[in-house]
């Protein structure tokens, strides 16, 4: 197991793990009573931003019972009940949550199931119930840094399912749906208390990240204190809830065009015009235009297309894999997304 592992979801077996009994041997009207220590562990994990799900080899019709039992329905996301192999259930859970197999932990009292998962999904962290209890308060089940944003992950997952359900049942166009969501992008200068989240954004974003360079905490702290740097952060909300702090930029204030050393946005907000709105706001805020440092990677093509959309081209190439992009003065930015309102907040 690598020390850099992070766990985003713990997948629980039911019979013999969450409860002592075998559910299909019950009355068919209700499920066995969960063990209090398991419910406590699930709640402790949720406070750390770690989701819980279910992979149980049992009659799939028990899913309806699980979903109608509030203490279980509210704790388990994307539960998988069926006769198939658990490694397949784990793959479905990872796909449904949009996370990697290597961010799953799997808890089962049966050695056979643990061995099946270890063999066919070796990326998954496999634990017996005793091992989980013993390791609950150490990494990777206890993340080294806990930001408000990672803590809110469980709530955000639920809001996201509401959003998906609303989008699926919405009658109009995609743009009409986006308007209906009432999205607001709140921007302000970063405070010292935002430091952990800034680091998290620089480290964990790839698709919407302009250079992939991660500043040290010390460098960031001095940027926040320096009048030569402008470090804006952005939060996104809509009628379903809050996405949290989803974007940031490290901008060098200059007399000429301000220079954006890093633009980083969470891929949670991709496809909603947020990157364009944030970049437009930066262009307006500067007054003298902006230049952006850009290191092309296999992941950040979307951001390069965005810069091209804003009329930016290479004005300088300090290294073979690093370019400075800029737009000639007076280049009009593309229209702002009509469905998104920008709100400037005091820092």
């Amino acid at each position: 197991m690598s020390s850099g592992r992070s766990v985003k979801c713990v997948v629980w077996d039911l019979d013999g793990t969450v409860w002592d009994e075998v559910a299909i041997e019950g009355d068919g009207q209700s499920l066995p009573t969960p063990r209090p220590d398991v419910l406590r562990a699930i709640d402790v994990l949720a406070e750390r931003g770690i989701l819980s799900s279910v992979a149980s080899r049992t009659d799939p019709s028990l899913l309806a019972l699980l979903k109608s039992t509030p203490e279980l329905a509210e704790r388990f996301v994307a539960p998988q009940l069926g006769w198939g192999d658990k490694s397949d259930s784990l793959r479905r859970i990872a796909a449904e949550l949009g996370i990697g197999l290597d961010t799953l932990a799997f808890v089962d009292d049966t050695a056979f199931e643990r061995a099946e998962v270890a063999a066919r999904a070796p990326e998954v962290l496999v634990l017996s119930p005793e091992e989980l209890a013993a390791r609950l308060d150490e990494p990777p089940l206890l993340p080294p840094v806990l930001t408000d944003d990672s803590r809110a992950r469980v709530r955000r997952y639920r809001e996201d399912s509401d959003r998906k359900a609303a989008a699926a049942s919405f009658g109009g166009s995609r743009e009409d749906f986006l308007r209906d969501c009432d999205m607001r992008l709140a921007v302000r200068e970063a405070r010292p208390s935002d430091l952990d989240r800034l680091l998290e954004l620089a480290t964990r974003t790839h698709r919407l990240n302009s250079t992939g360079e991660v500043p040290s905490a010390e460098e960031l702290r001095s940027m926040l204190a320096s009048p030569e740097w402008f470090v804006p952060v952005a939060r996104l909300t809509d009628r379903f809830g809050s996405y949290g702090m989803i974007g940031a930029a490290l901008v060098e204030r200059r007399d000429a065009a301000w220079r954006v050393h890093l633009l980083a946005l969470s891929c949670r907000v991709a496809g909603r015009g947020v990157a364009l709105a944030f970049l437009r706001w930066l262009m307006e805020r500067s007054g003298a235009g902006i230049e952006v440092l850009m290191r092309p990677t296999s992941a950040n093509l979307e951001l390069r297309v965005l810069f091209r959309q804003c009329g930016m081209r290479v004005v300088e190439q300090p290294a073979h894999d690093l370019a400075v992009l800029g737009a000639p003065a007076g280049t009009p930015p593309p229209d702002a997304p009509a469905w998104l309102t920008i709100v400037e907040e005091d820092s």
Partner: protein
Amino acid sequence: MSTDAVVRELIAEAIGQDEAVVAALPGDTRLFGPEVGLSSLAGARLLDSVRERFGVDVAAEDLNLDALESIASLSGFVDQHQR
């Protein structure tokens, strides 16, 4: 089918528009302009499908992505760089 016709199909697919509509646009129609309205996400998808279809990696060969200027500039770029 000509390169230009295929490129127009890929554009239509990327923006979720009817193929006949994109086929009828003038060659100098700007991809980021109101008629096509290419978003950054759709643009990245378009370059992926161009690479798959023609083996031309616009992202790797054109740091400025000038090929995304218009319909004709994209199909011209593909024509020039096709193996």
